[in-house]
């Protein structure tokens, strides 16, 4: 950005800088805050046009804070919708009308909103949903549990997974950049484990708040924006259910492939703006590998340290994107693995399924869907270690 003579400002009066500058080059200072506050700081620097909110624990605070940004003039349109179903529809309306749009939800709210997600993808809107995963009924739980992410995998939205507040901050900014590429232009769901990130305070490095992403240009969208400013006039922002001839299966099939293609096209962009689709931690020569995302990856990193104390080499392959799934990266990362542990915060083990599916025929390692906790249970590193020692037949020396 720097060398240019003309300086551009966004509507909030912030200096517009390139995504590369904002994400990688701008000087950063340390702040101590929660994940929810990190959402606010990301939105503040994202030239966001619109946001609609609805309360549900644990995402409410993030939604309140975006409201504060509206008061402060950083966000153009903000209001509380009637329910998550209504909110996700309102969000769709905002995005169709040409706005950079963000919202947040959790657990049961995700399920209530569900009908909207494939619609979002099918209508090619680059909205961002910050999902602070929590348990779903029944019985009622407000605890961290990411079962809902398993349901979202095939909605046609990109799914990114942040480990901590820093990840989340950077991902929200990168999310807009990648989702709005004309050849991608599908929604991005940036997931964090609710509470574990939203309510946890930690140090986070932030660029200054007087610079921001370039504003969204709706006229680069792959579908005409709904603002009566672009042709064609006759234009339906949806596939065709009408009883016309010749149009049913072929188009619908092609349309679905196109949405999935869009996700595939996001790979090079995501690689660039997330600095890789995976992150590796620990001893590269280790044969014991944890493949995980979010808090499970964090806990696995702690477990790697404890295992080191036991004299066992281990490492973590953290997946930053689930859709697109980092197939090639994962295959490369587990080349020498003997044991692949997939620790998860849900009862079904959706990530284990994904890992097995993509590694099938490509790895001789034993894939172990463990440890797995659910219902809000925590996953202490000590438990991971115990499980690893048990399942690999190693001697348990460590006393808990």
């Amino acid at each position: 950005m720097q060398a240019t003579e003309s300086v551009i400002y966004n509507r909030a009066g912030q200096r517009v800088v390139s995504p590369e500058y904002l994400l990688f080059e701008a000087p950063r200072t340390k702040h101590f805050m929660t994940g929810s506050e990190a959402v606010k700081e990301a939105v503040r620097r994202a030239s966001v046009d619109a946001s609609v909110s609805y309360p549900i624990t644990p995402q409410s605070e993030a939604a309140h804070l975006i409201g504060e940004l509206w008061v402060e003039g950083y966000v153009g349109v903000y209001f509380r919708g009637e329910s998550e179903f209504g909110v996700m529809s309102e969000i769709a309306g905002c995005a169709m009308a040409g706005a950079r749009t963000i919202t947040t939800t959790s657990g049961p709210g995700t399920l209530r909103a569900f009908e909207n997600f494939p619609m979002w993808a099918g209508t090619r809107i680059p909205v961002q949903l910050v999902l602070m995963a929590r348990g779903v009924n029944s019985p009622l739980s407000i605890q961290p549990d990411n079962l809902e992410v398993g349901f979202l995998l095939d909605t046609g939205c990109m799914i990114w997974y942040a480990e901590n507040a820093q990840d989340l901050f950077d991902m929200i900014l990168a999310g807009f950049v990648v989702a709005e590429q004309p050849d991608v232009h599908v929604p991005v769901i940036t997931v964090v484990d609710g509470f574990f990130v939203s309510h946890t305070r930690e140090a986070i490095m932030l660029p200054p708040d007087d610079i921001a992403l370039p504003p969204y240009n709706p006229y680069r969208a792959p579908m005409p924006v709904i603002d009566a400013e672009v042709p064609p006039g006759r234009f339906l922002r949806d596939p065709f259910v009408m009883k016309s001839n010749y149009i049913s299966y072929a188009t619908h099939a092609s349309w679905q492939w196109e949405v999935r293609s869009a996700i595939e096209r996001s790979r090079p962009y995501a690689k660039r703006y997330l600095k890789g689709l995976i992150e590796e931690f620990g001893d590269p020569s280790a044969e014991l590998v944890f493949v995980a995302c979010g808090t499970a990856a964090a806990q696995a990193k702690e477990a790697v340290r404890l295992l080191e104390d036991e004299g066992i080499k281990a490492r973590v392959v953290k997946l930053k994107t689930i859709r697109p799934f980092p197939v090639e990266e994962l295959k490369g990362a587990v080349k020498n693995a003997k044991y692949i542990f997939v620790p998860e915060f849900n009862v079904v083990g959706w990530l284990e399924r994904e890992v097995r599916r993509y590694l099938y025929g490509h790895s001789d390692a034993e894939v172990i869907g463990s440890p797995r906790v659910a219902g809000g249970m925590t996953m202490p590193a000590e438990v991971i270690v115990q499980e690893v020692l048990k399942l690999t037949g190693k001697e348990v020396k460590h006393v808990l």
Partner: protein
Amino acid sequence: MSYKIYEINEDLLDVMPQEIRDLQFRATWGNPKRGVMDLPYSKELIEEHSLCAGCPESMALRYILASLPSPEDTIIVNSTGCTSLVFPHIALHTVHSLFGNQNAVASGIKRVLEWRFPDKVKDVVVLAGDGATVDIGLDCTLQSFFRQEKITTICFDNEVYANTGGQESGLTVKGHVFKMAPKGKQWDKVPFWQIAIDSGCHYVARLTVSSPKRVETVIKKAIYVAREVGPTYVHLYTPCILEIGLNSDDGLDEMRQRDKERFAFFEYVSDAAKEVIERKKEEGLL
């Protein structure tokens, strides 16, 4: 940008089919005094549709499309149902999203357009059936009224779920036998026009589409008031001749009968709306 987006590049005019050229040269754009009396001569903004022969809903659509005061800057949001079979054939930006979320989508569109184009008029009009408006979409409909969204909601009340094969809806009259109410509907027709008033609409009208001119006036009032004041609601009786067992030429007669009873013309105008309507009358736009 307005109707300029329909202007064909001169260099490519010769390759455009007649119906598209007609849209540029024979349709009514940029004239707030347009109305149903243009129908016999002009190119309509609705091309062709796949609704049943004789369907009163399609009459309603013709009148509404002919009456929009500023079609070039009007966004239509619709919902699932018979109406969604028509919208692809309308020469405007239209959105079909999900069944029942039309007022929510419209809220998002309206607020963003107001923010993006503070100096322009951008009308957002919701057109949906009774199932979409009052049953599955009730929450979104009412909440958009509560929030005072500046949109016009038009409900095509055919008193039945027609597109799915004739099931009872909240707006079916008591006692009427439809699928899913095999013993006859057990409870009263929902008086939604009244609920709309209580929920904050500034202009509410209930009518059949037996009089094109009346539909025109109502639609114009509803849109002008929504533009300046807040939500407006129009409740139109558009009987499903198929589901109530009438012939294709019986629709108009059916509506004329109902004009005398449960769809007798009814209009509510708030004080703020009165002011707008009077002003528009003085300007010769109503």
